[in-house]
């Protein structure tokens, strides 16, 4: 994990290291850029390696907060899912129904529907539910995961209200062949295996990743019954899941590039019943097939890209009482054109089209829906210390036109000494969320008249980077934000209709503080990275219509007011030790904020040793321990979670 700035710095290093492979004129241009001005460097578009970076939307997301996990961070969890990574390494709260079970994210006090999840720039939230289950996203699907905190609808489109999770696999040219194969075994029948292999020269970059995991999840948990407490074994919580990802990028010449990617995921899960509830033998099959192809042309001042994607998402649920099958196919097209008027001024315009074809039992009929949006993004750096962006997006939905979604951002490095940098940042955004297919078409209840939700949010913050010694740096960031979500959709019984229906019922205000700091110390053979993060999140319904019985001014369910995470990464020679401690505050379970789950502290740690077999092959042994203090805790109402448990892994890697 690193902050945006450390990533930019890493990029600078990478670009500069890569120049040996490039023409001397390009080298000269790259070196003219001041190393501290990483943003400007991103505009050095003649560097093929930088071109790919420049095409990224994040270039236009100035003034916001990002948390980035690169392949090194993800490598700690090769058999895991994004739910595992985010829960262990950040103070983000993922509502989790059990190991391998549904994990839904809540960013900045919003619901899971208010986080856009993008894979190579395409939204992969299930169109029916409008949200993603992070337990269905194995870490091997991407090599970089960025969490963009806060609203940015103009930049990232539909649903980017609480934030955006960006999955990508940035190409590293000229790396050659490298890869790893890993086998894992753990508590409660956990078995996993993964394989990743990548190759790149200056023309072609390929990456193949496959992962499989299964678990019985028959962990013990206590239940209070008449006469005392009994220990039970969890039943109906087993799962099997696999994922295969293939990325390929070809440089046709210095200006043209073709990309293709495939990501297949399949999960076969029993649905863990609540404590005290009967086992109704519920199970769920989730399958996603994601294909995309793209072409990008990069010239001196112009850059053009076209991408097409096709997704098929299957969600089949069955229990003793219910059978519900669904399949949604999404076809998407994106086109963009960017113009660099100067190294400090660039504009990008683009358009997106989505076609949904849904076969969902609950709709009673086949449904198709088309959505469109167009955007314009502006990045302007009037001074090396001042970066500005202004983005606009207009979406067109069936019979609806959401409000224009603008996002404006600024970053100002207002003070710099040889060892310190101080930055002020801020952004403001109006964002939107289109009604999901379920919200519109479910029978009975689906409400075709739903308005899109609209949010207005703004944030400001301060970033400090301090080089205390040549080997010691500290980066600290403070962010305060506030956001109002209008037309918030809630499913409630309608007295007139006589059934449950989603309606635009309320205004929700989310506001909070985020503080995070990272210390890096590399005195020699030993290196240490320590991160600490704290979030204060207050999220409340502040107004409601007459049809909304839920009270106002209560903290929303499943939004902890306080959460924190501390992690340390130690490396010494071939040893590595990582630990993470997360605190999750009290969470209310109901709209009246009467019942709650107590706060909890979770401690995880991992120890690994890497044995160099020769200059190509490494063998790594890894032991991981979870919930080391043996806490009895709950993430979701009455769902049991395991106490102390562990996992052993053996990894063979080549490079």
């Amino acid at each position: 994990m690193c902050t945006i700035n450390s990533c930019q710095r890493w990029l600078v290093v990478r670009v500069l290291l890569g120049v040996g492979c490039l023409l001397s004129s390009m080298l000269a241009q790259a070196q003219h850029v001041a190393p501290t001005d990483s943003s400007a460097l991103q505009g050095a578009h003649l560097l093929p390696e930088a071109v790919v970076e420049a095409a990224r939307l994040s270039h236009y997301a100035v003034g916001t907060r990002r948390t980035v996990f690169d392949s090194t961070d993800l490598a700690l969890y090769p058999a895991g899912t994004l739910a595992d990574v985010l829960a262990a390494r950040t103070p983000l709260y993922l509502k989790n129904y059990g190991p391998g079970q549904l994990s839904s994210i809540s960013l900045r006090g919003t619901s899971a529907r208010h986080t856009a999840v993008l894979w190579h720039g395409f939204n992969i939230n299930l169109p029916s539910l409008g949200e993603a289950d992070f337990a269905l996203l194995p870490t091997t699907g991407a090599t970089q995961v960025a969490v963009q905190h806060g609203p940015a609808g103009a930049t990232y489109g539909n649903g980017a209200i609480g934030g955006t999770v960006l999955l990508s696999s940035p190409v590293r040219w000229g790396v050659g062949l490298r890869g790893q194969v890993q086998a894992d075994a753990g508590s409660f029948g956990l078995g996993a295996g993964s394989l990743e292999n990548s190759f790149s020269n200056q023309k072609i970059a390929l990456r193949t990743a496959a992962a499989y995991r299964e678990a019985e999840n028959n962990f013990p948990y206590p239940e209070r019954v008449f006469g005392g407490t009994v220990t039970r074994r969890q039943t109906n919580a087993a799962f099997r899941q696999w994922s295969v990802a293939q990325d390929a990028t070809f440089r046709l010449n210095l200006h043209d590039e073709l990309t293709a990617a495939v990501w297949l995921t399949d999960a076969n899960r029993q649905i863990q019943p609540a404590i005290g509830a009967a086992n109704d033998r519920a199970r769920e099959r989730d399958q996603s097939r994601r294909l995309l192809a793209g072409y990008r042309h990069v010239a001196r001042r112009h850059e053009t890209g076209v991408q097409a994607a096709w997704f098929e998402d299957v969600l089949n649920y069955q229990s003793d009482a219910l059978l519900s099958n669904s399949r949604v196919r999404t076809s998407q097209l994106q086109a963009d054109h960017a113009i660099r008027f100067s190294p400090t001024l660039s504009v990008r315009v683009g358009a997106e089209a989505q076609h949904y074809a849904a076969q969902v039992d609950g709709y009673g009929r086949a449904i198709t829906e088309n959505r469109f949006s167009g955007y314009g993004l502006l990045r302007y750096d009037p001074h090396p210390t001042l970066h500005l962006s202004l983005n606009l997006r207009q979406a067109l939905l069936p019979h609806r036109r959401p409000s224009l979604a603008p996002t404006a951002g600024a970053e100002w490095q207002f003070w710099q000494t040889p060892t310190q940098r101080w930055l002020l940042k801020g952004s403001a955004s109006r964002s939107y969320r289109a009604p999901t297919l379920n919200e519109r078409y479910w029978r009975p209840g689906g409400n075709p008249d739903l308005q899109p939700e609209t949010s207005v949010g703004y944030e400001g913050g301060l970033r400090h980077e301090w080089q205390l010694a040549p080997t010691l740096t500290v980066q600290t960031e403070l962010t305060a934000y506030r956001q109002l979500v209008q037309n918030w959709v809630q499913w409630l019984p309608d007295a007139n209709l006589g059934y449950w229906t989603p309606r635009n019922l309320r205004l929700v205000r989310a506001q909070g503080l985020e503080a995070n700091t990272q210390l890096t110390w590399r005195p020699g053979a030993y290196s240490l990275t320590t991160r600490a993060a704290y979030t204060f999140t207050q999220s409340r319904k502040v107004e409601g219509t007459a049809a909304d019985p839920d009270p106002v001014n209560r903290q929303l369910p499943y939004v902890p007011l306080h959460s924190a995470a501390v992690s340390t990464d130690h490396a010494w020679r071939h040893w590595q030790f990582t630990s993470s401690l997360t605190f999750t505050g009290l969470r209310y379970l109901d709209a009246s904020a009467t019942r709650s789950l107590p706060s909890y502290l979770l401690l995880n740690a991992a120890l690994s040793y890497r044995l160099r077999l020769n200059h190509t092959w490494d063998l790594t042994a890894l032991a991981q321990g979870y919930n080391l203090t043996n806490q009895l805790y709950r993430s979701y109402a009455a769902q049991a979670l395991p106490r102390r448990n562990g996992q052993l892994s053996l990894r063979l890697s080549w490079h």
Partner: protein
Amino acid sequence: MFSPFSFLFATARPLLALAGLLSLGSCGSSSDPDPNPSVSNVFVVNEGAFQKSDADITGFSSSAGQVVNATLFTSANSRALGDVAQSMTVANGHGYIVVNNSNKVEVVSMPDVKSVATITGLSLPRYFAVSGTKGYVSETVAYSGPGRVSVIDLTTNTVTKTIPVGLQPERMLVADGKVYVVNSAANSISVINTQTDAVESTITVDNAPNSLVQDANGQIRVLCGGKTVYTPTYEVDYTLTQPGSLVSFAPSAPTMQTRLTFASNRLRPTDLQTNGDKTQLYFRAVANSGIGPIFRMGINNNSLPDLTAPFIKGAFYGLGIDPNDATIYGGTGTFSGSDKFIRYRSIGTSIDTFATGSGPNSFVFYQQ
């Protein structure tokens, strides 16, 4: 609620309602208002959301007009009640709380609701009836096949016998040494002889009988929900949907039936109850979500109420009639954490409103 996902949440209520998951009214003995306001005499069954194990009992004092304890079972026993409290029946100083999706009946002492025993070995239990020292539990068993009634020895709180009945048995009525149980996914009532604990006869009524009472004239009144027909696109087909009806007969002549059919097929009548002297009939009429307004009719009325003109308008998931003064209790059914119950005078004007647990589906009136 069958799944964490919201779309399933959206469908679970209607589905449960279709399965005949309806609420039960009072089962306690009639009384004067409780003289001690710190002691509960009305027990609200908060069903709780499916798979959240958040069912509980709210203790309420009708004389003080205040909630004594909103989480009475949890407070009294330092543990959760379970998943989906379907109904509660009081007899002989004990309360029998049927916890549907925990496959159990919690036996508590009254009025403190302290645990006495747990009856296990049940399969989707629905309602509890008492005859002498025996209890009877109706059980769905499976939505696709016949249900059953388990016989409970109330001294040991164990199942002694199971009696096969019809599809999705629901509420029961004990009268003249017989237990009448409605088979809600069929058109019949199974009659169990309490001497032999065997089905001695089956009475054919109308489609989807869901609740029954015995009125002051000794007549058994059976409320039938009618037959809801869906189009291929899952919308109610009102051209084919059959309206509900009220079937009445004397226990001595069950085939000599009087049948009144509702004029409207838009709402499904359910949850039939009486006042203390059994001269008035009360019920709700609901659509998919199981919520709807409250209706009333005199037992000697020869015509049914107009379903478009309710006695008490509103969206009620639970109904209870205080046998002492015919105060009407209506419970909401949002399951979002904002549920409440509202009291109405016998003439239908509202008195007061109280917050309660999730999905108050019925009210038990108790006198020591």
